[in-house]
């Protein structure tokens, strides 16, 4: 028999014990990002101006294509199934250009991510840009971080109500403008705007504007960082694209730790003191509500605002910038090893500084050469290859095409003089916005002659036809060959089409069917 005290006890806590269990649903904790100042913030303002400018202005740019095509620079004409991009016009069967551009966008994103991390997320993603814009409004109406926290905590008052209404109204106006701009890509912008305002636009236009207004308002104003953290798949995919040489926003704890707010006191007491003064400026400006000093994390969109915030603090206390900086994992690890003497000790700031207090020459910094790695070169090669392929296809593509469908029922007809006739539906594609005279010629098939339904041509080897600008011309063509010249049940011949000027041509290999005949 054992005494209870003799029974071995375990130092164990139930992971799912009722005392520590977390609820499945956690309410969003509000984030009040402080306004940041600095070079990255400036860069982001510029990017925002450019991207929003492109988005809002593009549909209003005009491009003269002559009298037979719309004069809108960028137009997705769904009704007529044409896509216009300045001098380029794309028909539905040329959609591979769009597919190619999407592939390029994919490779471009891989390339960007493997070199400068989540730059797409931090600077150009529409979610980031619009949240930034919404935050500008929020700051203008409610004030900066502290004022907003105070207002949020305050009981409802006329002032609070007015500010909230003003903020949401401005957000809604931006949202309507965003949704509104989208539809201008699909119709003549000035006409559509007039119709939209006077209530004459198609219902689908209003529905689209309403949906995009809703998504812009909800994603940009209400959900914000939750879209990136919970809805977007890109943060998950990116882990596979980053490697130890990719630049990410990094807290360099090898020079920041141990952090303290009382550096002088600690130094006087003989303790090691890092550069971080624990001012939390980096946390205050973060739109994602994270602390970059916890290390690289899923939520971080690398907007680099914490770099700006920290740099200004470092300037104030007379330390080098870059406590929070774009750094690669490789240089971070090397510097960390320096600071900890290969992991033998805790972080010792003295290890990375020379006697005069400057950062040691042994500290590794980023070099542009690191951009050239097999991974990035392969991405760049793939990206360029697709791009060059598209360019080649674009420069050599046909603007005059012919497609031929042979009649199948009946395959051929015996005429009274014994000659054999086949019917063909000939489709001429005049893919330029100008009328053209196209010459259709029969090549091969000895003795055969064409006649065209609805046209005066009969028994000819070649005829001219007027093609409307930017349209498909369908002709019913009968080809007739004298019986004694029929060389077999299946003969091959060619329909050749040519621009009157001879500049462009296309051909179609067709077959001529006849009965198996004893001669």
């Amino acid at each position, binding site marked *: 028999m054992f005494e209870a005290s003799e029974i071995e006890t375990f130092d164990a806590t139930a992971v799912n014990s*009722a005392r520590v269990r977390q609820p499945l649903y956690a309410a969003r904790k509000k984030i009040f990002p402080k306004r940041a100042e600095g070079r990255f913030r400036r860069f982001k303002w510029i990017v925002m101006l450019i991207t929003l400018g492109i988005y809002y202005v593009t549909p209003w740019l005009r491009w003269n294509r002559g009298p037979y095509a719309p004069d809108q620079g960028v137009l997705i004409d769904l009704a007529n199934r044409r896509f216009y991009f300045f001098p380029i016009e794309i028909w539905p069967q040329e959609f591979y250009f769009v597919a190619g551009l999407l592939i390029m966008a994919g490779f471009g994103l891989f390339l960007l991510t493997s070199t400068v991390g989540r730059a797409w997320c931090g600077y150009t993603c529409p979610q980031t840009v619009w949240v930034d814009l919404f935050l500008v409004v929020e700051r203008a109406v409610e004030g900066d971080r502290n004022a907003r926290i105070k207002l949020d905590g305050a009981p409802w008052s006329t002032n609070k109500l007015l500010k909230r209404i003003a903020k949401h109204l401005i957000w809604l106006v931006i949202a309507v403008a965003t949704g509104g701009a989208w539809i201008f890509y699909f119709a003549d912008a000035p006409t559509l705007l007039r119709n939209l305002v006077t209530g004459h636009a198609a219902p689908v236009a209003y529905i689209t504007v309403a949906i995009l207004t809703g998504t812009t308002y909800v994603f940009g104003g209400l959900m914000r960082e939750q879209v990136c953290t919970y809805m977007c798949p890109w943060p998950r995919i990116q882990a596979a694209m980053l490697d130890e040489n990719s630049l990410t926003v990094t807290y360099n704890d090898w020079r920041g730790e141990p952090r303290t707010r009382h550096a002088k006191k600690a130094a006087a007491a003989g303790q090691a003191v890092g550069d971080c003064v624990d001012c939390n400026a980096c946390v205050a400006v973060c739109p994602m509500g994270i602390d970059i000093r916890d290390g690289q994390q899923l939520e971080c969109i690398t907007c680099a605002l914490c770099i700006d915030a920290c740099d200004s603090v470092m300037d104030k206390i007379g330390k080098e910038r870059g406590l929070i900086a774009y750094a690669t994992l490789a240089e971070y690890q090397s510097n960390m090893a320096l600071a900890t003497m290969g992991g033998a000790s805790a972080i010792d700031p003295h290890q990375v500084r020379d006697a005069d207090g400057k950062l040691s020459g042994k500290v590794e910094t980023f070099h542009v050469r690191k951009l050239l790695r097999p991974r990035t070169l392969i991405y760049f090669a793939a990206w360029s290859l697709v791009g060059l392929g598209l360019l080649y296809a674009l420069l050599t593509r046909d603007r005059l095409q012919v497609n031929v469908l042979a*009649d*199948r*029922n*009946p395959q051929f*007809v*015996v*005429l*009274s*003089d*014994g000659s054999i*006739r086949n*019917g063909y539906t000939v489709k001429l594609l005049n893919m330029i916005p100008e009328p053209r005279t196209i010459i259709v010629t029969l090549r091969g098939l000895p003795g055969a002659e064409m006649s065209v*339904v*609805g046209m005066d041509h009969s028994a000819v080897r070649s005829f001219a036809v007027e093609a409307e600008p930017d349209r498909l011309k369908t002709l*019913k063509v*009968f080809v007739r060959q004298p*019986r004694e010249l029929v060389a077999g049940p299946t003969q091959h011949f060619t329909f050749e089409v040519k621009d009157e000027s001879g500049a462009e041509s296309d051909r179609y290999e067709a077959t001529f069917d006849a009965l198996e005949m004893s001669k």
Partner: protein
Amino acid sequence: MSDKQIDEFSGVSTTGHDWDGIKELDNPMPRWWLIVYYATIIWAAAYVIAYPAWPLVRTATTGLLGYSSRGDVKAELDAAKAAKADYIKAIGSKSVKEILADEKLRVFAAAAGAAAFKVNCVQCHGSGAQGSPGYPNLNDDDWLWGGKPEDIQQTIAHGIRYAEDPNTRVSEMPAFGEMLKPKEITQVASFVASLSNKAGDASAADIAAGKEVFAQNCASCHGDNGKGNREVGAPNLTDAIWFYGSTPAAIAAQVRAPKHGVMPAWGVRLGDTTVKELTVYVHSLGGGE
């Protein structure tokens, strides 16, 4: 049963149901779920008032909006009819020749004719209008009654040997089996086959004798040289196209006891406009004159 208590772990009341000691928590519904639930109730009530909903003995409630799916179909059909109205009117007022001269009208009429053909004509003439023995191929350039637009229109409108239409096209080849000797029938068949080089092994003497028989009995309708006569629907016997077969035996059978096909008159059944559309379609198949 109703033994409600507070669950000691979650602090939530139980429903009071107890299955072998397992109790069910009475958690409230999520708010978003309730909102959606109430919204569907409101939607359902509004729907019942606005749209047809309650089945009655013979009919159903119509709803305030007066909606019906038949109404939708009618509106769509009316819109389709209205869109075609101008073309239909133009086809009704113009002659087939005028229609053929107007490209847009011709294409429209040919498409409409093709649709009417699929419903009314393919049973005999085939889906590609290629015909079969006894039913003419409409793609070729051989016409019993003429291949001009007005000829085709007349044939479609009034039919062939169609007793109920006084203006129908009529022709009847006598049954020569009772008038000619079997030998003469074989000879004349060989002669007719020889007109298109299909006489086979018939002797020159037989063909010469057949020519004699032809001149006496057949030439009045088929012409001295066998080229036929469209006035009376007598086929051209010199071409490559044969209605009931081109072998001497098939020709002999037709001489002995001719088959006569009947085509109904479509003018009354389909109306003038549809007949014109069919005419344009048939004319555009490649053999139109």
